[in-house]
């Protein structure tokens, strides 16, 4: 459902331009506000809608199959760690509010800096293990699965 931008709400800040995965949110040079330059390359992914600090961007269902008169609005809040949706049907009979968490940690706080963790030993380099393994696969119960440990062979030919 291609996005569009409300004239009176957009201040041309460019957050949508910065985030759009399809490179279709551009700033109109005369009006100095954002707009969707290529609706038929829009995936209605809502990345720009979520990123807009003024709720200036909305979505109107694709003209080739979606009738007018519906609304799906969203507010994503990294500080609260939530996303809030409101869905309104064309006939007005359904009006839903849905809330979901987007993270369990303060934003960006829990990703490790692998340049600073102890360097892998030669033994680990020569093994098949990745960072944090095998602990992160099996707790402390055993190592990485191999063909041998699992009683397997790899054999050529027609097998089912």
């Amino acid at each position, binding site marked *: 459902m*291609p996005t569009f931008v409300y004239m009176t709400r957009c201040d041309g800040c460019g957050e949508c331009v910065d985030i759009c995965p*399809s*490179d279709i949110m551009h700033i109109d040079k005369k009006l100095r506000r954002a707009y969707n330059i290529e609706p038929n390359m829009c995936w209605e992914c809502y990345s720009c809608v979520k990123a807009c600090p003024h709720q200036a961007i909305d979505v109107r269902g694709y003209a080739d199959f979606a009738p007018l008169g519906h609304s799906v609005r969203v507010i994503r809040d990294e500080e609260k760690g939530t996303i809030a949706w409101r869905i309104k049907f064309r006939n007005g009979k359904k009006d839903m509010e849905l809330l979901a968490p987007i993270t369990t940690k303060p934003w*960006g706080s829990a990703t*490790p800096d692998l340049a600073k963790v102890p360097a892998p030993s030669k033994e680990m380099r020569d093994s098949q293990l990745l960072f944090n393994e095998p602990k992160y696969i*099996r707790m402390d119960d055993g190592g990485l*699965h191999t063909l041998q440990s699992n009683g397997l062979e*790899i054999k050529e030919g027609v097998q089912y």
Partner: protein
Amino acid sequence: MNYSTIIEDNIDILVVGAGLGGTGAAFEARYWGQNKKIVIAEKANIMRSGAVAQGLYAINCYMGTRFGENNPEDHVRYARIDLMGMVREDLLFDMARHVDSAVHNFEEWGLPIMRDQKKGSFLREGRWQIMIHGESYKPIVAEAAKKSADKVFNRICVTHLLMDESKENRVAGAVGFNVRTGNYHVFKSKTVICGAGGASNIFKPRSVGEGAGRVWYAPWSSGSAYGLMIEAGAKMTQMENRIVLARFKDGYGPVGAYFLHLKTYTQNGYGEEYESKWFPALQQMVGKEYLDPEVSHRTHRPIPTCLRNHAIINEVNAGRGPIHMVTMEAFQDPHLEEIGWHNFLGMTVGQAVLWAATDVDPKYENPELTTSEPYVMGSHATGCGAWCSGPEDISPKEYFWGYNRMTTIEGLFGAGDAVGGTPHAFSSGSFTEGRLAAKAACKYIDDGKAEGIRVSEAQINRRKEQIYKPLETYHVFSNEVVAGSVNPNFINPRQGLDRLQKMMDEYCGGFGVNYMTNDKLLNIGLKKMSILGEDLEKVAASDIHELLRAWELKHRFLTSESVFHHTLFRKETRWPGYYYRGDVMKLDDKNWHVLTVSRRDPKTGEYTMEKAPLYHLVGDVEKAAPVDHH
């Protein structure tokens, strides 16, 4: 064209395309190469790029080894039967034995994964799927990649790989342009991990006009992983294995949670079960080894995705459409109803928009399903991609040449859709493949394999000229006509894309011909493709944004050409429901229980095709499946 050349030199690991595969690569590379220079080049913004940009409501590949749920070989068997036998079991086993650790890392970084309150394990949607609140899946994972990388170049459309001039068939980096400034970017690197994604929009989509962006896989998935690697001469595998999806009509909303968790099911337009009646004839086509409903019922072995499509396609053709998803029962439960809606909002908002627009309340109405146009990718229920080396402790000799996930070009690695033969990796498996590739790439450098790489000015300048040629073409010829998009000297990227999609649809088995093709059609298609290839030398771009579309189109073209060659080569109908070879309407294990491998000669553009042996894991007994699955 007066654009600056910006050179980033002395890179150890260059990640091209940072979706889930690329972010996994960048993240892990820092651990094995703490002093190495790691750089990401991404055509969008890594916080919302790749197939997971919008979010996901499930992680579809998780073994649960920690909770005693599955072993890697169980997943290999599942992928094997789903793909009618055609998978790389060494790569699959390797991915499956590592994938849980990726998921446990995600949880630690803040990804909300739902828990089974009774068991304490992750909440299962199906045997392999766990449920998440994944609206921010991509930004969470991107934060980790960002922390590992020395530099992230957003908005760089990578167009070509650079090749070493001191040693043949060795990679030396990549080049592209900035889609904002237009500047030319050169990345000189010892290794490249290609995670540039699979291909949507190469077959004509069912949607028309404004809705053409409403494709199942993201419209920005331009097949660039394939385009880059094919152009450089990397061998590809299973490129004929396009996928067709049975999804909610028009919105292409996902059905996994509906089938598995909400226990909804399908019926024809007249309220009847339709699937089983197509199975006897289908069994004649593919053999009892691949389709045996009784065995499937008894052992919970899944019926392959393509064969379920086959039943839908045939039922609709028999005049008893549309196929409906029966939601009216499940949606009476308010909790399940909420999950049904959250599922869309978490990964395909457009389906929610569509139901709101058309007043479809699945509580009171069973929504329509349809089969999509085909897609070429390698991480869902299909395994297109590069022919890559497997890990040394698993792979047989034909599958092993030194470094895990390395393509047939030295120093060029793949992750996610880029790697062939590894279906059912999904988001977590793609991230895992990136990690595996990163470790191997570090080892490749430490082993001294990247010494003495030389890239001449001539190569850099030649690519620059090529990259901006569409702007030049526009500049030279656009004023020959008064106005408008019709010009005898060039086509624009949209016109080229329309032509490609029409050709793929009509000659290579798109939805418009009910997924049917044959040797005659494919040969005609190939001839037309070569002429389109000539015309793409004259594609014109009026600005930098259109230049991006021009290069996406060229990558889609190379992907499509490969699909044509592979489809022609495999003389059987291996995946009824994905596509049919009308001239050979049977599965043929005697001649075609093999993987198809191609190479396009970068100098001549000529294709050579070969068969590679299939290896399977044998030797143990399948555990009883704990959860029912489709």
